[in-house]
């Protein structure tokens, strides 16, 4: 009898999708798709540039292959005009799959501009010398393409797909030297963790879809359940729905946490960062992480605006009052930064140390996520976007120095950085500045970034936020130990060699650029903050 009832309930469930006829496709969907295409220009340009590079490499002699870097830089610069042209537009594209709005445009520009130092560093990296570079730049541009989609996707399908485009490209980049043991191991670990994270995230999406009947971010909060359904008795129906939503949230978060290397999906970071070519590590630690935060901001921003947009009589209103996702984020944030910093204390390899440092910074950035949708002087999106720009300057700077040193010494062990203060005064001095910025000492970008993150959470108030602020402050103090250890090794320990370390001009240009940005973001923080304040999302 029971089973029969269930079958009946299944058959009579309201079906949201009505099968559209051919006419509907022709008259409504085609024009919508064709109209969307013109906003899709930047992405198309990146894709075309990527494919052009791949094919160009077929006809180029091998000694010119490295100059494909300039084509790749062009491929990153050309789409900027399109982004600038439609910067203020706010529109849903491709039948609710993607969106164009200032938020997406800001992050697209961030990924494109942020890839230029990566390409320049690839050009100077000795490790990549004497090879065919077509495939490398093709994959690099493809991952930028994926990152751009991540910033603008508004549907479970596009969220998942764009995340996977970036992920698959990153796997290949990490294992680019497939004969190298460490790189191959790193790539394999990255793939395994990535597939698990993707599977869990997919499960989360399916739960969420089951609760809302829609895959669009704008209707994330519209959880509904049938009061007649037997599984939900009067007493506990809301509690069960809330539990399901909480699990769906956690599962989806796991997929994003993997991209930003936050607890509980941080395990891959140290091995992958150490094993990957250093340029790729720089790319992963900044662009890939920023893409993860863009997609998280989009998702959580959609969730919080969807919750506040519920009709007063909606049955989901009470449910969301009970689901405290901000508290979950606070707990994850505290755990992530503490673990990252504690584990970094013992590291002896610069790349591994930077991996744990990047986990810790993911923790700091999560502070900004936990204030999304609350009324503060500095909004969550604003502080995170600003911190990401600051993080780009100091992290790329540090990795640029690491690459230039590695070009000569073929190592990134801290042991080999002994006496770098004499052997390469410019690089050592620059690295010291980036280190201070990573700690958050004024007058650097890191200080301004952290300052605004702290201001945000203190503005909200309440004990969880004060606890978070205290934890973050203690972590900052803790991080000073291992960051300053690098400076101590460079200046106060004698190395075995006194030979000067030469670095290429283009590499020094990147370092100088990042130094400039590090100071610029501190002294002219207002201009960037003003830009990041107006990152409206299309609702």
């Amino acid at each position, binding site marked *: 009898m*029971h089973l029969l009832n269930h079958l009946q309930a299944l058959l009579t469930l309201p079906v949201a999708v009505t099968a559209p006829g051919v006419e509907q496709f*022709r008259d409504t969907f085609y024009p919508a798709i064709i109209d969307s295409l013109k906003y899709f220009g930047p992405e198309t340009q990146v894709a075309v540039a990527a494919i052009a590079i*791949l094919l160009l490499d077929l006809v180029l002699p091998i000694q010119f292959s490295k100059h494909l870097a300039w084509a790749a830089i062009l491929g990153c610069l050309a789409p900027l005009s399109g982004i600038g042209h439609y910067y203020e537009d706010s529109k849903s594209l491709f039948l609710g799959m993607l969106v164009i709005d200032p938020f997406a445009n800001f992050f697209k520009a961030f990924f494109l501009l942020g890839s230029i130092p990566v390409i320049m560093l690839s050009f100077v990296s000795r490790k990549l010398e004497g090879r065919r570079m077509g495939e490398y730049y093709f994959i690099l541009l493809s991952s930028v393409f994926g990152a751009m989609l991540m910033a603008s996707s508004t549907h479970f399908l596009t969220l998942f797909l764009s995340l996977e485009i970036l992920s698959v490209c990153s796997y290949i980049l990490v294992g680019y030297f497939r004969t190298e043991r460490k790189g191959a191991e790193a790539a394999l670990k990255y793939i395994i963790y990535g597939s698990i994270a993707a599977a869990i995230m997919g499960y989360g999406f399916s739960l969420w879809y089951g609760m809302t009947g829609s895959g669009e971010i704008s209707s994330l909060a519209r959880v509904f359940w049938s009061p007649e359904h037997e599984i939900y008795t009067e007493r506990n129906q809301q509690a069960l729905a809330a539990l399901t939503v909480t699990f769906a949230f956690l599962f989806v978060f796991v997929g994003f946490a993997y991209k930003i290397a936050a607890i509980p999906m941080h395990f891959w970071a140290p091995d992958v960062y150490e094993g990957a070519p250093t340029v790729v590590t720089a790319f992963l630690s900044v662009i890939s992480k920023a893409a993860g935060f863009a997609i998280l901001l989009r998702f959580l921003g959609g969730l919080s605006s969807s919750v506040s947009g519920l009709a007063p009589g909606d049955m989901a209103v009470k449910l969301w009052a009970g689901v405290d996702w901000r508290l979950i984020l606070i707990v994850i944030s505290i755990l992530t930064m503490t673990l990252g910093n504690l584990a970094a204390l013992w590291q002896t390899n610069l790349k591994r140390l930077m991996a744990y440092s990047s986990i810790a910074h993911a923790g700091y950035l999560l502070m900004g996520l936990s204030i999304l949708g609350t009324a503060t002087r500095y909004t969550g999106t604003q502080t995170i976007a600003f911190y990401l720009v600051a993080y780009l300057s100091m992290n790329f700077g540090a990795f640029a120095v690491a690459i230039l040193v590695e070009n000569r010494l073929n190592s990134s062990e801290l042991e080999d950085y002994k006496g770098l203060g004499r052997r390469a005064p410019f690089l050592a001095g620059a690295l010291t500045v980036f280190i201070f910025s990573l700690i958050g000492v004024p007058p650097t970008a890191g200080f301004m970034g952290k300052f605004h993150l702290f201001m945000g959470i203190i503005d909200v108030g309440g004990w969880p936020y004060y606890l978070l602020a205290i934890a973050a402050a203690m972590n900052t103090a803790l991080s000073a130990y291992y960051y300053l250890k690098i400076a101590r090794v460079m200046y106060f320990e004698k190395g075995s060699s006194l030979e000067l370390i030469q670095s290429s001009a283009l590499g020094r240009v990147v370092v100088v650029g990042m130094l400039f940005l590090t100071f610029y973001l501190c002294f002219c923080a207002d201009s960037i903050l003003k830009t990041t304040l107006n990152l409206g999302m299309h609702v």
Partner: protein
Amino acid sequence: MECTLRPYLPIAVYGALVLGTGFSLTLASSIFGPRVRRLEKESTYECGSLPLGSSRERFSVKFYLVAILFVLFDIETVFLVPWAVVYRSMGLFGLLEMLAFMGILLLGFVYAWKRGGFDWE
């Protein structure tokens, strides 16, 4: 909570039945069944050819490339067939869309060819 899980009771009963039947049949055959120990009886299959070694052998990594290239054309067919079915109603737009898709695939094909993806050696 007991009322929450009640609808699942039939599933639990069904599961218990399945497991119980399986176990009791295996047990019964091992207790009551006749035992014949001969060479033919002990071999993997009682009839047909004798198994030659393990099936988990190493094979050339070149097959991997073949499989990947197969996927390229497989996907092409997967999209071509439904497009062919609704070709008339999709009209010019559908044709252009398909041409763009085929064009991108063709570029991949050219790349694989030029790079020697189809040479076995």
